[in-house]
């Protein structure tokens, strides 16, 4: 751009282009060809006929792949998939990052699935992508970790937050029947379920006579589902509070890691870690007596129910109105509540009596 004239030309064309762009701005999304005809099985287009199951596509997207807990849920979803005869796919990145999950979901939409079954890392950040999916007629069912309520049709909550809190406190009391000081380790300050669990646990300890023997440390620690960090926090908590009795964590990575740390420090039997964990992770602790109880639910059944619910939404068998009943056959019947939440509510308490009954 040497000459004045060239520079003026450049400047003018830039302004002209900018003007044209601003003028062309619109807030309605462009539609891709063949966009909304993707779900060929939706009842509207076929005038109410029963759709062919083989044409129905359901994607399951966990927080990230590679975690055993989600694999168990996957097995449940696949079981539902094969029973129903649908096309069931498991998608996701193996990195526990929000942007990765959003990319996965964004790229799931053009594949025109009929439903998405999602466990959200960041319930607010995935909302726009999920809303886009819903706008295209895709049914969205969340499980395990919810997204923003207006971004999904149903939320299959493994345990209502109250039940989850009570279950963990019960497990704590099983470990330490005389009660005592309790500390909390959560995954992250922004995990809505963990935050809710802790809040309710604190309330229950304050108000419910059944838990009056317990007291708690107010500051919550965060381990980000990292085993090493969980251990360091567990050890530091024991040092910070010499009369600590129980460490409670909603994270299936943190709870067993904390227990192992306690064993390593030679404090097994004086302090316990408990909370939610896969039975395979804690079988050893329970059998050796270092730990008395951990809790969870059946992730396979959760995945099964979530997939069935998604399928029934797609075929129009159910709606999201409160009071609708989802019939999941052997897995039970569940009622839709206000706000689209479905409570699975079948907690499992793992103790020496029953730990061998579970194979996951």
């Amino acid at each position, binding site marked *: 751009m040497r000459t004045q004239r060239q520079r003026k030309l450049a400047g003018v064309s830039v302004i002209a282009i900018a003007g044209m762009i601003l003028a062309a701005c619109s807030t309605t999304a462009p539609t891709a060809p063949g966009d909304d005809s993707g779900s060929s099985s939706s009842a509207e287009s076929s005038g109410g006929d029963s759709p062919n199951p083989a044409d129905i596509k359901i994607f399951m997207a966990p927080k990230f792949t590679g975690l055993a807990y989600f694999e168990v849920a996957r097995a449940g979803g696949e079981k539902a998939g094969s029973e129903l005869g649908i096309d069931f796919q498991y998608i996701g990145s193996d990195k526990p990052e929000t942007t990765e999950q959003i990319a996965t979901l964004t790229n799931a939409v053009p594949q025109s699935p009929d439903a998405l079954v999602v466990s959200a890392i960041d319930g607010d950040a995935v909302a726009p992508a999920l809303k886009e999916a819903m706008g295209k007629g895709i049914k969205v069912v969340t499980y395990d970790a919810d997204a923003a309520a207006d971004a999904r049709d149903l939320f299959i909550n493994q345990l209502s937050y109250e039940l989850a809190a009570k279950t963990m406190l019960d497990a704590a009391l099983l470990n330490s029947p005389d009660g005592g000081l309790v500390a909390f380790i959560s995954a992250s300050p922004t995990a809505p379920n963990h935050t809710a669990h802790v809040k309710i646990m604190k309330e229950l300890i304050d108000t419910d006579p059944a838990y009056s023997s317990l007291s708690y440390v107010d500051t919550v620690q965060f381990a980000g589902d990292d085993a090493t960090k969980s251990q360091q926090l567990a050890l*530091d908590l024991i040092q910070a509070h010499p009369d600590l009795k129980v460490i409670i964590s909603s994270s299936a990575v943190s709870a067993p890691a904390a227990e192992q740390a306690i064993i390593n420090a030679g404090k097994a039997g004086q302090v316990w870690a408990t909370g939610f964990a896969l039975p395979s*992770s804690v079988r050893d602790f329970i059998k050796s007596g270092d730990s008395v109880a951990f809790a969870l639910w059946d992730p396979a059944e959760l995945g099964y129910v979530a997939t069935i619910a998604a399928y029934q939404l797609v075929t129009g068998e159910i709606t999201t109105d409160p009071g609708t009943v989802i019939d999941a056959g052997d897995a039970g019947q569940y009622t839709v509540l206000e706000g689209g939440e479905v409570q699975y509510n079948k907690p499992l308490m793992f103790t020496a009596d029953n730990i061998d009954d579970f194979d996951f």
Partner: protein
Amino acid sequence: MSAASGVVARFGLAGGGAALRVRFIGVIVFQLLLMAVFTLARPRFASWDNLQSVLFTAAILAMAAAGQTLVVLTGNLDLSVGSIMGATAYVVFDLTGTMPALGPWVVLIAVLIGLVLGAVNGFLVTTLQIPSIVATLGTLSVYRGFVSFYANAKEVTVGELPPWTRSLAAARVLGLSSYVWIAVVLVIAVGVMLRGVPWGRELYAYGSNPRAAYYYGLSSTRIVVTGYIGAGIIAAVVGLLLGAQVGNINSLLASGIEMQVLAAVVIGGVSIWGGSGSVYGAALGAVVLATINNGLVLLGVQEYYRLLFQGLAIVAAVAVDALVQRRVLRATRRRSVGVAA
């Protein structure tokens, strides 16, 4: 007489003597200051029970930092350390789960894994001349990808670990965890080797002035690759120890630890440009980080402030270190006559 000590003597920089000691003192002062502050705020901090716990939580990181020092001294980085740790832990303990007869041979397998993965890193950096930050960024993904693939989302549960590893993690000698003793032995061994063995001195020489080292006939390829192999072996063994400590191992073990390892190395006075610093400093850097974590939990401080505080500590440590380095450089320049550094 070796080429390396000749280089060191001629150019007056790097590993030996005054320079090392002054940098090291910086970290010690920092650590003592931290301890004083925490003890004042909460006297329980200074109890033996707490201090030995801090040392335990620092052990793994200290060993990993010692390994990383071998690479940083040459002016390079190894960002794949976390992936090597996780891969070794998972693969080895998965094997012991299915083949319990392996027994203590697992350590040898771990060493082999670390050797190979480290050698690949070294190859990429020397023969292919890929800048170390890029090469190890790539191997971080590739190694982690391999273990994810191998694991197929299964966990190695604590019950599958061989009993002797779990006893080791829980063992105590003279009131300190066995891991602390292992860390002490390992760090001292590496430190002694760096000072005493010719290769160690060559490492410092090369790191502080690669061009001069070249003119002296030192093989950069050999030095750098050996550094990476050493770091890889140490990372693998540390991974094994970490797996035994954690119990339930999934494919994401030690994911993201490279940042902490770098932080420990940097706080410990090891120069990122290479050529100076000691493993003792790096190990102490790990202790500093563990102390900060412990102190903040003791004081009931929220997580957010911990991140802030740790970050500021790193910047402070780097600033102090640079100050020290400049003083030393000025002093040695005065001593060695007419030599361009």
